[in-house]
């Protein structure tokens, strides 16, 4: 207890109904209620949000940047996953 700092929290804000929560930043708070209150005061001063998620930063697991190659590059060569890969005869509609 005592001199230790309040934990760091990551803040996610839904800017309006229908959109997903997006990372807004971080802040410090002793507990989850305080984190929500602080997120409201710090990150929604200009009506930026309709909903807030807070997650303790040390609960987030991130991918390792040095593995970015094996993780993400293999999908670059799979253009067949995108609609523009395919030829559609001219004049065909609604596709």
């Amino acid at each position, binding site marked *: 207890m*005592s001199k230790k700092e*309040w934990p760091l929290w990551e803040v996610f804000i839904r800017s309006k109904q229908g959109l997903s929560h997006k990372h807004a930043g971080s802040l410090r708070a002793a507990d989850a209620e305080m984190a929500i209150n602080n997120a409201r005061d*710090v990150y929604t001063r200009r009506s930026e949000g309709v909903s807030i998620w807070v997650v303790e930063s040390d609960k987030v697991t991130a991918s390792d*940047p040095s593995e970015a190659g094996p993780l993400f590059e293999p999908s670059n060569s799979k253009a067949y996953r995108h609609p523009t890969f395919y030829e559609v005869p001219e004049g065909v509609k609604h596709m």
Partner: protein
Amino acid sequence: MKEQNIEELERQFQEKIDNEIKIEPKDWMPDAYRETLIRQISQHAHSEIVGQLPEGNWVTRAPNLRRKAVLLAKIQDEAGHGLYLYSAVETLGADREETIDDLHSGKAKYSSIFNYPSLTWADMGMIGWLVDGAAIMNQVPLCRCSYGPYARAMVRVCKEESFHQRQGYEIVAKLANGTPEQKEMAQESLNRWWWPALMMFGPSDADSKHTEQSMKWKIKRHTNDELRQMFVDVTVPQAEHIGLKVPDNDLKFNEETGHYDFGEINWDEFWQVVKGYGPCNKERVDARRKAKEEGMWIREAANAYAEKRAKRNKKAS
């Protein structure tokens, strides 16, 4: 790690920077890059926080309800901006409270403009117009800084600060168009703030020890002197527009260069204030230290309560 490895990593790192690819927290970066960023971003954060004080000095004396609300909202933004920046520092592995302790011990610096006193209501206008104006000059290029979290924080800060300079200019313009007493108040304030505002851009390029490396790393996009010139060029016509005189007898528009020539800055004063001998250095740091010390029991209480509650919840489940 082997030496060649580091060289190779440094080469890849610089290549990313040269290709305008942002560096993110967990990416490899040279220690010196990390240290430079920690120093610069925390200094920037401290400036926001200490910057609350000269304006806070007039919150309780604001002349009407509208000005009072605007001033409060502006100072609050500064606290928010300090917070965004401390968050960016923390992504580099630095601890917020430790960087704040460095401020309190005098080890870390902040913008020396805030070591000048705010003596009249006109100073609230001058701080918004000149000080925030100068800050914006510095901050807009930082939105493209190579370090992702810093750049993102700056995008937010710049967006929110767009009202700060305007409200300051509005205060000054109102005074300049007011009674003779009010106009005098505005001019007197401009006389005090003009030179310190020019000093905000830091030492001239010849004396700036960090500029070259920071430009190469794209932490900085313009030199101090370039930014200072841009500031003078846009601000002088704004002063003239409301009939105020910039206190510089050497100030003159240079048709050839298309820029204003201006007088010599008093660098002795600049270095003295940076070293801690400005009119308010002691008051500013004391005020911040006091706030932190008086917050200790509150931090501890909130921690203790959170722990107790976590235990109770565990028992219950």
